[in-house]
């Protein structure tokens, strides 16, 4: 390498594996043009916890909506235009002074994408499922 040559960031093994699979699938014409960029943009800017916040805020000010939300979560959430993958069968629970709900997937990382977006790192952490299923009051 020349003295004045730039030093590009090293490509990690996992990045090389992603690039390999992407290249092979692209050669087989399985990657629609713009698909990766579009789906990434949607999850970065349109689908996220701001959607769930709208649902909760509506329930705060509209008792009839709150009742529908707790009784038929999927339909009530769809009223605000939210739905899609991982949101097909939604159940809504409510915290009270006596009951605190913690949602955890102990087998993978199931998460309600339409209202909360893609799961954050702590939810996907292998430490989350083990502790919360056994000791939800102390874990985390």
């Amino acid at each position, binding site marked *: 390498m020349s003295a004045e040559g730039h030093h590009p960031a090293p490509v990690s*093994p996992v990045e*090389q594996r992603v690039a390999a*699979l992407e290249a*092979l699938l692209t050669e*087989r014409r399985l990657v629609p043009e713009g698909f990766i960029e579009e789906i990434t943009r949607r999850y970065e800017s349109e689908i996220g916890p701001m959607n769930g916040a709208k649902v909760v805020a509506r329930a705060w000010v509209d008792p009839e909506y709150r009742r529908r939300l707790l009784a038929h979560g999927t339909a009530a959430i769809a009223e605000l235009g939210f739905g899609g993958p991982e949101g097909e069968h939604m159940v809504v629970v409510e915290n009270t002074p006596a009951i605190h709900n913690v949602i955890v997937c102990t087998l993978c990382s199931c998460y309600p994408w339409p209202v909360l977006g893609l799961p*954050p790192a702590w939810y996907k952490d292998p430490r989350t499922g083990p502790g919360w*299923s*056994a000791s939800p009051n102390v874990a985390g």
Partner: protein
Amino acid sequence: MDGIHDLGGRQGFGAVGHSPAEPVFHQRWEAVARALLEIVAGAVEASGGEFRHAIERMEPGHYLTSGYYERWLTAAATLAVEHGLVTRSELEARAGGRFPLSGPVLAAPVVDAGIGVGTPRFAVGDRVRVREWHPPGHTRCPGYVRGRAGTVVRVDGLYSVPDIEAHGTARRHEPTYSVRFDAAELWRDGQRGVWVHVDLWDCYLERS
């Protein structure tokens, strides 16, 4: 399968970290890996059960030391190889090194899904016990509830049994239930006043 993914109740993992200002994707390759899984799953018509099982079959050490999107990548590549879209040697040649894939499916393919259960066998308030069994394939029944007794608190609709859909094109639909377990029933020193609700398919349960 009683794989490395079924971690409920395991100890010694330490505290869970939390960063409020976390980006959706930390690096671009994560977004690409996520999109590639959608592409592969669509191309090979993989069910949710087949996709999850592809992750569960990862080598345990690799599973625990890889992040969420590396698991998606591994599942995508595994399904792509198993369904003949690409070969392992092509992947390794392009990646310029080893490309770890998930281990083989241990369960036999499901040809006959059996007859679906159209009417719930259990009602809200019924006491049920989770069957004690150790299927070699995919299941959505966590190990820590097997053999344990709980109470049905909600009856949901009919859903495709993951244990079947993960292993072929056959499908069977059954009611699912939210079953409430006392933490003390699941963990000998379970916390008082803690209930664990688990969504379980009809075939996982027997009357208690």
